[in-house]
């Protein structure tokens, strides 16, 4: 096999793959898919990195490379970090999955943490956040507050992560408001604030008075503000500058606790491969403050849902639930297993429209 490559052996000979032994500082690398100034996904990962620095001070050294394209570029950046003595490397985009596994094979003594993927190895863990738990809270608020009964949803690409969010929001909006209808617009881009603004405007013009977004810019917030009586939710970061109206709450990606925990595990020598999917309970998903624009009863109901999910008493995907085509999915009282959720590629019953294939 080519795996016992020249590269690995050369690195071994130089004693660099075992950098942790040589230096007393723990070196943690972060590979980012966007710029740290994107105000969303990468911005929040970088906040996590800063939290690690704040927590451990002199005992840790962090490095990062931003705007790293998926594929060979990411593989090179990870290798570069490992060669330079990183002990732990966080790779923060789904597309880094195979590159992470490739590089991890060459550096058995370096620990890797891959966000949102599913492939693990003895030195590769995966982690992700149960954002759909936050969507359940949003759905509840949205369902109770909508007057037009039309809720607009801006999706990026039709991937399981986004579909899961739509389903969760829909189920909980429907639960509190049986007449609710979802209008879904796919932007087919990860990042184009102007297009997000257009999408939000279109949804508002077509009668939506609640906008949910699975894109990271504040463009929909601004569009809602101009329209007046439309509410929105912050995505990825709090977007508190638009509170109390139109932003009435938010889902915040909070990676700091996990990053600190895993860094500590490497320092203590207790790091083991794991597959973590944390939600509101563990604090990986934070619900931003519910603003004063939300009536008390709605707020109470939303907090109730949040608490039930946080304590584990309630799972957002609890039967009876049917798939969009009417076929049975979950029987009364059953909860969805993580495998189905992770690869979710269907809408639940009641949602109009098809998932683009």
């Amino acid at each position: 096999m080519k795996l016992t490559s020249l590269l690995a052996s050369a690195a071994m000979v130089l004693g660099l793959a075992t950098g942790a032994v040589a230096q007393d500082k723990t070196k943690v690398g972060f590979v980012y898919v966007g710029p740290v100034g994107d105000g969303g996904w990468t911005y929040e990962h970088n906040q996590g990195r800063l939290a690690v620095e704040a927590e451990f001070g002199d005992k840790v050294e962090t490095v990062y490379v931003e705007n790293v394209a998926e594929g060979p570029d990411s593989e090179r950046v990870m290798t570069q970090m490992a060669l330079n003595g990183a002990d732990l490397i966080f790779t923060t985009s789904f597309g880094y999955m195979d590159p992470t596994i490739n590089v991890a094979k060459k550096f058995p003594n370096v620990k890797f943490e891959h966000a949102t993927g599913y492939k693990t190895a003895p030195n590769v863990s995966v982690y992700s956040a149960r954002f759909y738990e936050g969507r359940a809270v949003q759905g509840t608020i949205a369902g109770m507050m909508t007057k037009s009964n039309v809720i607009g949803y801006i999706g990026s690409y039709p991937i399981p992560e986004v579909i899961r969010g739509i389903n969760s929001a829909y189920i909980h909006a429907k639960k509190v408001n049986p007449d609710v209808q979802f209008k879904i617009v796919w932007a087919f881009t990860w990042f184009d604030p102007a297009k997000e603004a257009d999408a939000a405007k279109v949804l508002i013009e077509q009668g939506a008075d609640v906008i949910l977004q699975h894109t990271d810019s504040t463009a929909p917030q601004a569009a809602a503000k101009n329209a007046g009586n439309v509410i929105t939710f912050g995505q990825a970061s709090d977007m508190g500058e638009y509170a109390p109206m139109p932003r009435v709450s938010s889902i915040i990606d909070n990676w700091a606790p996990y990053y600190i925990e895993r860094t500590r595990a490497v320092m203590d020598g207790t790091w083991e491969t794991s597959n973590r999917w944390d939600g509101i309970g563990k604090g990986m998903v934070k619900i931003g403050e519910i603003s004063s624009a939300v009536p008390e009863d709605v707020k109470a109901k939303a907090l109730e849902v949040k608490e039930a999910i946080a304590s584990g008493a309630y799972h957002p995907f609890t039967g009876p639930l049917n798939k969009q085509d009417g076929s049975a999915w979950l029987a009364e009282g059953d909860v969805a297993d993580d495998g189905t959720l992770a690869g979710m590629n269907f809408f639940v019953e009641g949602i109009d429209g098809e998932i683009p294939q």
Partner: protein
Amino acid sequence: MDLSAINPVLLIASLMVAATPLLLAAIGELVVEKAGVLNLGVEGMMITGAISGFAISVETGSPWLGFLAAAVGGAVLSLLFVVLTQLALANQVASGLSLTLFGLGLSSLMGQSYVGIKPPQMADVHIPVLSDLPVLGPILFSHDPMLYLGVGIIAAVWALLKFTRVGLILRAVGENHDAAHALGYKVVRIRVLAILFGGACAGLGGAYISLIRVPQWTEGMTAGVGWIALALVVFASWKPWRVLLGAYLFGGVTVVQLNLQAAGVAIPVEYLAMSPYLVTILVLVILSADKSSAPASLGRIFHASH
């Protein structure tokens, strides 16, 4: 599917907003190309304008000063292009592409402390009576002032090119710089001014995105509008009013495809998302009967010695 959900009046009003950044950048580039210069750095100048405008309007609290700064920012960046192509006689295509690369980097450096800030808002104009008219009110009389300025610039460029001596000289320089030089016109000086104008317009277009259309600062937020603007100039066969038409068409197709999606029309979404580009190509083929062609000296290097 529920097509009745689409409100044509609002649709037209929002496509005008969607088209404005494109329109501003394209009319600037049109003047540049009329002078015989091809500047592919529009995206870079736009994003520089976007952050310059954003930063200044946040610092001063005035969107107007922001737009002024955006125009200055775009023009200053285009000065680099001037140095390269007019003084150092470098290849224009490569210089323009490099300018985009540089502008994208520079803007993110400038913008690092402006992430997650809300800029001051520019109020929409409200003209008593007119703005309240049904149909015409929302379409024609209820936009932000910059949108009207964009249309105004188009009209001004049109008038300038068609009726004035300056326009005549500009076109002469673009058609045949050697002849223009022989007639005693300062070819380089005219081109420099045209490039600066193009930079300022691109800057305004960028700031329209960061201050009005989105409004927010994030790195790389112009997301390719500059390239579309370049295409638009060709599309418009270097005619100002066609720039307006093309921008509205392009913005319109984008807004319409989102509208169709929201209304649940059963066309696969990815094909809807392609539609603005496909429609542009289609219209181009239809317009190809019109043989008015590019300025003859477009992209050619001028040096007075030969």
